[in-house]
């Protein structure tokens, strides 16, 4: 449990608050939020330093590891690292080939990035919940002289909806771009307005347009939201359960945290995989020009 006399709900709340840097609405100054309340008040003009820091750091780990292997890639007998990275790449490549039936050089690297990056971010969930936050608190208190209750540090970027939605919205806008590019503006609008209900009578067709637009619009908008929130929800719930387990007395924690962590290994990989596959599926739909 975190330092000091915290109640259970305070502990949970503390663990679910990001390290936020933003514009304080009361005086217009950019600063680090001291309380969860303050972080909330900062609204949109704030940034989660922990989420950004960890995600970018993990992204760099991915890029560095893979580009080193890429640079040294031999066509002969591969070493252990190259071998494992080749397995990942072939796995992604075969998945993309199965799901994505068009040619676009962006999709496979994007799927690889999404899969490995999300996997690495999810993996942070397996680090004991208090491990790094405690170190951060120690540094915050002893180096910067902060109140320990005001040091917020979340290490799993994918438990931050900004992170998952940021990626899913990127995919969404990219899908919109490719839809318009491949189907034309008319084709894309037609897809949204002339289906699923259609008629040969022009007048009825006209009447059906708003209904179709509503239905298709909902399904269009539901895609990025469900895409991002699925990942967020799974990881958030997982993290939440780890936090709840951490509230148990020390001697009893392992009885629950170990099985949950083992189960979570599965969830982590599965969610990263689902995120990647959905992304490829959405991109495929954006490229499908066939009649509907």
């Amino acid at each position, binding site marked *: 449990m975190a330092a000091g006399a915290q109640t259970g709900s305070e502990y949970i709340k503390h663990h*679910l608050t*990001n390290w*936020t840097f*933003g514009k304080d609405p009361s005086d217009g100054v950019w600063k680090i939020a001291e309380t969860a309340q303050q*972080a*909330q008040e*900062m*609204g*949109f*003009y*704030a*940034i*989660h330093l922990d*989420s*950004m820091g960890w*995600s*970018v750091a993990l*992204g760099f780990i*991915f*890029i560095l590891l*893979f*580009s080193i*292997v*890429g*640079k040294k*890639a*031999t*066509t*002969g007998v591969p070493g252990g690292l190259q071998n494992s*990275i*080749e397995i990942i*790449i*072939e796995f992604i*490549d075969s998945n993309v080939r199965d799901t994505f039936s068009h040619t676009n*050089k*962006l999709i*496979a*690297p*994007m799927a*690889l*990035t*999404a899969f490995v*990056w999300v996997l690495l971010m999810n993996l942070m969930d397996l680090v004991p919940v208090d491990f790094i936050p405690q170190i951060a608190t120690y540094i915050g208190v002893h180096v910067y002289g902060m109140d320990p209750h005001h040091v917020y540090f979340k290490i799993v*970027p994918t438990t*931050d*909806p*900004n*992170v998952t*939605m*940021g*990626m899913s*919205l*990127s995919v969404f806008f990219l899908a919109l771009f490719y839809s318009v590019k491949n189907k034309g503006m008319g084709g894309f609008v037609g897809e949204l307005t002339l289906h699923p209900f259609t008629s040969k009578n022009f007048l009825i067709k006209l009447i059906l347009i708003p209904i179709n637009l509503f239905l298709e619009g909902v399904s269009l908008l539901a895609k990025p939201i469900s895409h991002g929130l699925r990942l967020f929800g799974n990881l958030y719930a997982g993290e939440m359960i780890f936090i709840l387990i951490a509230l148990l007395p020390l001697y009893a924690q392992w009885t629950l945290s170990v099985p949950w962590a083992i189960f979570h290994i599965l969830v982590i990989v599965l969610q990263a995989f689902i995120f990647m596959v959905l992304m490829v599926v959405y991109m495929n739909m954006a490229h499908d020009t066939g009649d509907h």
Partner: protein
Amino acid sequence: MNINLTLIGQAISFAIFVLFCMKYVWPPITSALEQRKKTIADGLSAAELGEQALEKAKIDVDAKLSEAKGEAKNIIAMAEKRQSDILDEANVKASEETSKKLKLAEQEVEQLSMRLKESLKKDLSKLVVEGAEMILKKEIDKSTHDKAIQDLVTKI
């Protein structure tokens, strides 16, 4: 749980990572994989070709071997024949030579015996004449008697 600028920051970093991956990660590794696949395929087909060549070579070797065996048999037969020929020839030559030598020896023997006979005749006639001379010492004229002896010698 607040939606804020992190959203955009994340989108930007995602884009950067994707672009980086697209430029520096994906192409070298996939091309290495592709190249290795090609190398392996080439190696396999080369192995197959080698196997075929080996099969062909085996057939060739078999053919050559049987040919060589046949030839060797021929050579041996010829050699055997030649051997017997040579033997025959040698036999013939040897017998010819022996018969020649025999003839020569016979001739020699004959000559010798002739010479012997002649000298014997001469000695005998001399003895006869000497004997007769001894007996008829005074009456005998050497020249007429020589003639008579010569006649006798030819008669013998």
